């Protein structure tokens, strides 16, 4: 494959996705939501906070010392801004849509398809496109399937599905993290 300036930039960008932190982040969310619903213990909801906390710590303590820091160009930062705007717009649109359906102002023609799931899928498709990572498509589809199962089969199928998803994603994430740490040892030098 030809090396282009675009591919160099893309590879630099993608290096930040190789540490498995996104997989672990979503794994924590799915696992927590599964445990929370199965045990009916609201305390487990707080465990979701571990996701963002983990991301912050790992990025600062494991990823950055190993692959360094980079400030991407305006085009790349513009893409991130567009994703953020897209996510906010999707959330607002979904909240309005769901409240209109609940108040019988609007009729949902396809009740078995969860609107929330569609919104999440749309957000992940946006992220995959603008953030140059096909992994988000898989995460979006999995999220949609989870919502679909939860809407149509209810409990305990929904929570169990999420529990399994959480375990699978956590295993995948930690495997990636292990490989990342093995392939990127902390450089030994003094500036």
């Amino acid at each position, binding site marked *: 494959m030809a090396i282009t300036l675009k591919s160099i930039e893309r*590879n*630099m960008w993608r290096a930040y996705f190789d540490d498995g932190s996104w997989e672990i982040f979503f794994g924590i969310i799915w696992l927590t939501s599964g445990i929370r619903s199965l045990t009916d213990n609201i305390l487990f909801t707080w465990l979701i906070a571990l996701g963002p906390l983990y991301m912050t710590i790992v990025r600062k303590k494991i990823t950055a010392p190993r692959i360094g820091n980079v400030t991407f160009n305006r085009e790349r930062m513009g893409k991130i801004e567009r994703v953020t705007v897209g996510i906010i717009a999707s959330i607002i649109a979904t909240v309005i849509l769901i409240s209109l359906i609940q108040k019988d102002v609007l009729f949902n023609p396809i009740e078995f398809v969860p609107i929330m799931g569609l919104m999440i899928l749309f957000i992940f498709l946006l992220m995959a496109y603008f953030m140059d990572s096909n992994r988000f498509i898989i995460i979006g589809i999995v999220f949609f399937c989870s919502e679909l199962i939860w809407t149509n089969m209810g409990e305990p199928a929904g929570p169990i599905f999420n529990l399994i998803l959480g375990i699978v994603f956590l295993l995948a994430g930690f495997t990636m993290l292990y490989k990342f740490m093995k392939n990127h040892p902390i450089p030994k030098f003094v500036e």
Partner: protein
Amino acid sequence: MNKTNPNPFFNINKLVHEPARLMILSYLYVVESVDYVFLVQHTGLTWGNLSAHINKLELEGYIAVKKEFVNKKPNSLVTITKLGRDEFDKYRYHMKGIYNDFPDE
């Protein structure tokens, strides 16, 4: 008097043409700034080798190095300058010009 050699191969900017420096400039061209760790990891150069090339490029004014402290540890941020960007562009067009004249196989 124009000292430009009519043979295009003699007019290649040797400072940019050197593989390690070309690689460093390519990385810097596509981003705003990077630190030394990032360059070491992505270029595969040793710390000493990278430092030598960075110094050479900095002396010519192609790149700028900003030294700062992050969490009490020294951290150098490297950026490409306007001159460096222009020279890199010139080099690209020059090389393209040379290869475009070659007949296809």
